[in-house]
């Protein structure tokens, strides 16, 4: 396959979660850096770089669940800035385990309500597909590496990074 000079413009975003899939991604760089360095442009990746921009993104990879109106507004902006959106990991894809408080019994809910109110958290934690349209899902806790590679390679072809 021939490589074009064009790069896939990606964003990597984290919401409420343990960032396990971010760690997995940084570990995948150990083996895939030489393959990816001429194919990927990091438009937004807070864990790796200081200067980030939220526009003109081909694929946004989103980790974590949505637990506030503020985050809901932010993820909608990411959707607008990205041509494709992929959920990364269990919290983004299903809302759990970060959304475990949705399943607390009423007594426990009552005990934590003052903290939910104090920090303006939403009544219910939501997965990413509950808030915005997503194009692909990479499940797993942490993310399934093989599925991630399958999705990434699909977008290399779709955005004509590889002929």
């Amino acid at each position, binding site marked *: 396959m021939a490589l074009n000079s064009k790069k896939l413009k990606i964003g990597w975003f984290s919401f409420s979660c343990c960032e396990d899939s971010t760690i997995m991604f940084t*570990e995948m760089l150990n083996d895939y850096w030489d393959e990816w360095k001429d194919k990927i442009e990091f438009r937004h990746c807070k864990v790796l770089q200081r200067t980030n921009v939220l526009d003109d993104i081909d694929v946004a990879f989103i980790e974590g669940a949505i637990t506030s109106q503020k985050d809901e507004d932010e993820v909608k902006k990411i959707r607008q800035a990205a041509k494709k959106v992929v959920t990364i990991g269990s919290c983004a894809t299903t809302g759990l385990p970060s959304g475990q408080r949705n399943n607390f019994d009423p007594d426990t809910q009552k*005990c934590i309500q003052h903290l939910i109110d104090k920090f303006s958290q939403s009544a219910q934690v939501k997965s990413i597909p509950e808030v915005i349209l997503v194009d692909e899902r990479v499940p797993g806790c942490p993310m399934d590496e093989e599925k991630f590679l399958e999705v990434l390679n699909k977008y290399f072809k779709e955005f004509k990074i590889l002929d």
Partner: protein
Amino acid sequence: MHHLSNITLKNISKVEGKANLRVKIKGKKVKKVEFQISEYKRFYTWAIKGKNINALPQLVSRICGTCSIAHLLCAIEAIETALSINSSEQTKLLRQLLMYGLIIRDHALHLYFFALPDYLEKDSILEFDEGSAREHQLLHDAFTVKKAGNLLSTWIGGRAVHAMFPKVGGFVKLPDIAQKSKIINQLKSAREKIFRAINIFAEDKFNFERKTNYAALTSFDFNFLEGKLISSHGWEIPESEYENHLEHVIIPYSMSSGYKLDKEPYRVGALARLNLNKKSIHSKTQKDCQRYLAKFPSSDIYLNNLAQAIEIIHSIDHSLEILDSLEIKEEQPIIVNPKKSTGIGVIEAPRGLLFYKLEIDDSGHIRDGQIVVPTSQNQINIELDIKKLVEDNIERSQIELEHMIEMLIRAYDPCLSCASHFLKVRWEKSQI
């Protein structure tokens, strides 16, 4: 005269998680620093209630992706202490190797990906110039060192993140001894490479000193998992007494609590460990790192980076020693007999002391639990450091100061996912 005006700095990068910072300045004095950990609460201390002790370690592993193995092992220790389970010598060695794998991978991610770009005046490791022999080498050293830790943890735990094989009483699956030589070769390769970076962290390019207290778990072989707690206050106590010295401090503007030790702010982490126990570093590391170790004890937070680099070498040296004679014999995990009990676990996570106190009921379910993470213990100290840093550099430009604050916070290697994500600075300036 130069005056600071209101500044908003959003999303400090290259740390694990999110936080905001508000600095209020009056004249040349900082009146208030609010380090707000803004990672939304996920309520793990509530979620653990009612969970079976066998399911708990895998649940608390999800508190933090980068130090998941530390949460896993600390929870196991607390449960085993409560139930008087004495794990086998093989289990102890495998847990030790699992922990060293975590220390190598986690420190290497912080040092190469988060801290090193500041030392090379780069925005990001992604900007390292592959055409420059030095930068190309450092970039690829980063991958080799991280991979060594990753492989070691994966070999023992099944995965480097949310390890699947460790459990209360032992391991559900034992490592394949046929892979041992591959692990040894990767560790040896990483050891050679780390010395290129250690020289950079030892150059004293950045300094920030403020006298404070330190606390660490210390052992004769610097093993991160057991020992006595020592503080710069002068005391030496068993793990079970640590909570008696801790004071919980509610920080109204932060998702995380803060802590004081004997009513005073303190620092935990690699710098504290080297300050209090450098004599116990592996003899081979001592020999090759003599001039670096001579810099400790120190109150310079930037030496936390050097301390982490030394700890990587120590973790490799001790792992190689263990691996040299390691044989794997088939054994089953110890059967757990639940009883009403309380257990404490204290370990040295990569960023410092991690404390678990778990109350178990007769049926083997968690009645209640307390978890104290390293970044919460450092939170008050971080605010005091920022106050001094800003006052010492009050004539500098806003942009310079913001960068200095970011670097200082990065030197702490905070884990904000654990503590409850980074950074938005709000400056409030009054001229009077």
